[in-house]
């Protein structure tokens, strides 16, 4: 399966934070190819294990499974729904946007678009979704608390760039699956625990308990970082699509190991850029690092434009670079744990 096909399969099912099941099921099918059985824990984290030769050492490959979306808060007369955001959403994109509502069955809705541009961006609490159903019929399908996700499908743009919702962070999951494929049959020392964690978008929640349970000796996290656009060119911490794997340095990751990761990229001719963060990386690396007795953690990122929208854009080659680097890093760090 090539990267595009893999991303198609991962992005298609929705998995808004707290309701990741459809996304988890699709991912479990792909993960089981490398891990045999997969499992889900109390928080819904999806876990698959590839056993190594040294039962004392564990590397955890972690990417979050959930995506931003919305939740139904009220069912109104005339087939309208009030809603709230799940995760960080840009209210400016919403007027006129088509969405999918996950009630007893899946239905479409469209966010009301005022005729005139408002002077100030409308707040989500003041917006409504029109479903086309009468109130009575709607109440048979939708309940308060049902999830709402963007409507999108993966589209190929020019120059190997792809557009889809939920690239954040199905792209990270694609990296892990691709890395496992690269590592297949390598007979490494460390056990590889692959974890696709839940509820990252609402406060790095799944990874925190997941990492506690796995107690890894090393965690490699893959997530997205901001991709450059013409209006963010001068902003710090944005990376052109095509930068390759972005390696984080800073307190969110292990100081020495992140330098070693840069060396691994150099030695394997994997394109990379370095990102520096003075504190929280805004990723699960921040939570995993302080799980249990503490976990040496690394973060590899993929540049992504328009994060948290229905039209996130990334470059296939960057996903592949991150996968190559993840696989090379697993091999490199596992080597130290081979039986003498």
């Amino acid at each position, binding site marked *: 399966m090539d990267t595009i096909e893999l991303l198609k399969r991962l992005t298609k099912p929705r998995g808004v934070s707290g309701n990741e099941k459809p996304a988890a099921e699709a991912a479990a099918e792909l993960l089981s190819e490398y891990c045999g059985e997969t499992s889900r824990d109390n928080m819904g984290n999806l876990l698959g294990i590839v056993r190594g030769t040294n039962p004392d050492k564990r590397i955890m490959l972690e990417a979050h499974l959930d995506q931003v979306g919305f939740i139904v808060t009220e069912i109104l007369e*005339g*087939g309208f729904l009030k809603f709230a955001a799940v995760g*960080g959403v*840009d*209210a*400016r*994109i919403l*007027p*006129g*946007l*088509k969405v999918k509502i996950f009630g007893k069955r899946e*239905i*479409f*809705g*469209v966010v*009301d*678009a005022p*005729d005139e*541009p*408002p*002077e*100030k*961006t409308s707040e989500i609490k003041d917006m409504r979704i*029109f*479903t*086309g*159903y*009468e109130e009575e*019929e*709607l109440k048979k399908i939708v309940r308060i608390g049902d999830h709402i996700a963007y*409507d999108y499908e993966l*589209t*190929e*743009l*020019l*120059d*190997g*760039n*792809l*557009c889809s919702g939920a690239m954040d962070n199905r792209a990270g999951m694609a990296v892990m699956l691709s890395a496992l494929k690269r590592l297949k049959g390598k007979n490494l020392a460390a056990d590889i625990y692959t974890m696709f964690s839940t509820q990252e978008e609402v406060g790095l929640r799944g990874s925190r308990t997941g990492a506690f349970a796995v107690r890894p000796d090393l965690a490699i996290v893959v997530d997205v970082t*901001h*991709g*450059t*656009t*013409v*209006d*963010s*060119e001068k*902003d710090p911490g944005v990376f*052109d*699509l*095509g930068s390759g794997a972005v390696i984080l340095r800073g307190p969110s990751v292990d100081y020495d190991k992140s330098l070693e990761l840069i060396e691994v990229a150099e030695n394997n001719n994997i394109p990379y850029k370095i990102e520096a963060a003075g504190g929280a990386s805004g990723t699960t690396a921040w939570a995993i690092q302080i799980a249990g007795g503490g976990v040496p953690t690394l973060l590899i990122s993929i540049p992504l*434009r*328009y*994060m*948290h*929208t*229905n*039209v996130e*854009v990334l470059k296939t080659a960057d996903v592949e670079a991150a996968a190559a680097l993840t696989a090379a890093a697993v091999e490199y760090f596992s080597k130290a744990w081979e039986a003498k």
Partner: protein
Amino acid sequence: MSGVNFEFMKKLSEAFGVSGRENEVRDLIKNEIEPYCESVTTDGLGNLIAEKGGEGERLLLTAAMDEPGFIITNIKEGGGAFLDFAAVGAVKPHTVISESVTVGDKKLPGIISLKAVHLTTKEEREKPPALKDLFIDIGADSKAAAEAAVTLGDYAAFKSRYVELGDNRVSGKAIARSACCAVLAALIKDAADRPLTCVFTAQKQTGVRGARLSFGENFKEAVIIDTLEDERAKLGDGVSVPRIVGETCVDADVAERLEAAAESAGKLCCFAKKNSVSDIEGISVSGGGIRCAELDIPMRNKNTASEIADKRDISAAYETLKKYIKDA
């Protein structure tokens, strides 16, 4: 089978029809109606004119076939190449962010966007962006790659999935013009045997330009099929016969008969004044002047990527006009 062909309406909705580049929509309509017409011609601006013979005085019926969209004005570089664009027609800037588009005759996929919310200041987030703050991303890594794919002046249209909303409503791009054209096409097939000139107009969006051309002389009267957006209108309650459209006063006699036809179908909802303009502005004063009225299908989210209409209202427009033509 008679009545509005909703499959055809869907096809129209999915076709590219931005003002000034209506050829795809025009061809679809031409294929649909040609077997039922004595002649189908395209005039100098791109209006599609269908003539039907029969007994009695000739009626003029019109529906606009263009939709709002965009035109590429510049290619700029910065972490890739991005397209500046301007509006073609009644685009609502506050509804276009994060919508998908197709660019040019090659229908290159792209999206309208701006930098991620995480990178904005509170001030930037609170002010709805203007079109000049947005750009189209076609995924070009360099200006050269963008230039190879796009020529300045290429048009872009919304790309939006046509979906059913509930049992009767539909949503997609260009639903307004697609509904009006589908009604007119159905009338050409089914209406009573009398002389009809049916015009599918070009460039309504850019200032009622197609409808200012002459479509002949000696029409008894004309009806313009259009849409309206009014917060008070409930989709499914029927069609409206306005008395004032923009600054045009409709012909009271034609309007009354049109109203009577809608009423007999039990499908009249009344909004006396419609604020937006329509082809009536041109048709009513074309040549020596034509007595005109308008029939409006209520809409939601008009001129956005996901316009919404009710199939019952679209059918009501068809039924109303069928009766009106028979009695006129």
